């Protein structure tokens, strides 16, 4: 019972702060609400007994990505505002696409049967996660490390100033 109460608490916090992320005019306020959303989602993960995932969420999102966003916003000009006006066709697209998605999701949820069926019984413990990650999923794990190395090199090459032939 208390788990459900905590889950609802974090879920409401996550949804409210996610709405505030996309409504803010000031980009820095948006980033702070994004940090709040990320922490609330970490709380949801803890409620769902995914402790490792929650810890990774706190470390990587709360500690890494949010700080990266703040640095980028400090580097680029904060007062630069973008006019939020659009022409008719993009507006129609923006209204129809989420509406169609919502209809589809509602249809799926109203079928009133569980969208996932139980598979073979596995233990939901830290040890079994580690064993599975380093045995069944070792190839994606190694590919992910190569991806991160490529991202490191690529981000440095794209973001450095020398490539731009810009006098300042």
């Amino acid at each position, binding site marked *: 019972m208390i*788990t*459900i109460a905590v*889950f*609802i608490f974090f*879920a409401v916090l*996550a*949804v409210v702060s*996610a709405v505030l*992320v*996309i409504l803010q005019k000031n*980009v820095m306020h*948006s980033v702070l609400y*994004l940090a709040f*959303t*990320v922490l609330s*989602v970490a709380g*949801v*993960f803890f409620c*769902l007994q*995914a402790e*490792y*995932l929650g810890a990774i*969420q706190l470390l*990587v*999102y709360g500690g890494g990505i949010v700080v*990266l*966003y703040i640095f*980028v916003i400090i580097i*680029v*000009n904060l007062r*630069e505002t*973008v*006019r*939020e006006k*659009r022409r008719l066709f993009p507006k129609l697209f923006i209204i129809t*696409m*989420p509406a169609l*998605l919502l209809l589809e*999701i509602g249809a799926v*949820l109203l079928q009133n049967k*569980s*969208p*996932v069926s139980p598979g073979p*019984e*596995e*233990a*939901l413990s830290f040890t079994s*996660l580690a064993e599975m*990650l380093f045995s069944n999923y070792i190839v994606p794990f190694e590919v*992910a490390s190569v*991806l*991160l190395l490529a*991202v*490191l090199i*690529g*981000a*440095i090459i*794209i*973001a450095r100033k020398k490539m731009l032939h*810009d006098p300042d």
Partner: protein
Amino acid sequence: MIPINAVFALGLILFGIGLLGVLLRKNLVIMLMSLELLLNGVNVILAGSGYHLSSPRGSIFAIFVIIMAVSEAAVGFALVLSYFRQKKTYDPDEINDLKG
């Protein structure tokens, strides 16, 4: 036991908010933030599925999604920075250099 429909609803709501953010806002930085919201919604659904099937696979897939989100954020910000240095704007409608 948390009902699975509640978990799926939370994930889908986060996904929908992120989708609205990507489609409605015209600031590149806020669009990238909305992409993070989208991926967070997907992660909630994966973690909920793993919890209900009592399998660690949900967490493992969510970890790979997080790795992908980190890569996307790093490269996306590098692109936004270099774009901003050249054009002095964040407006995605200005990205039409290849237009014939």
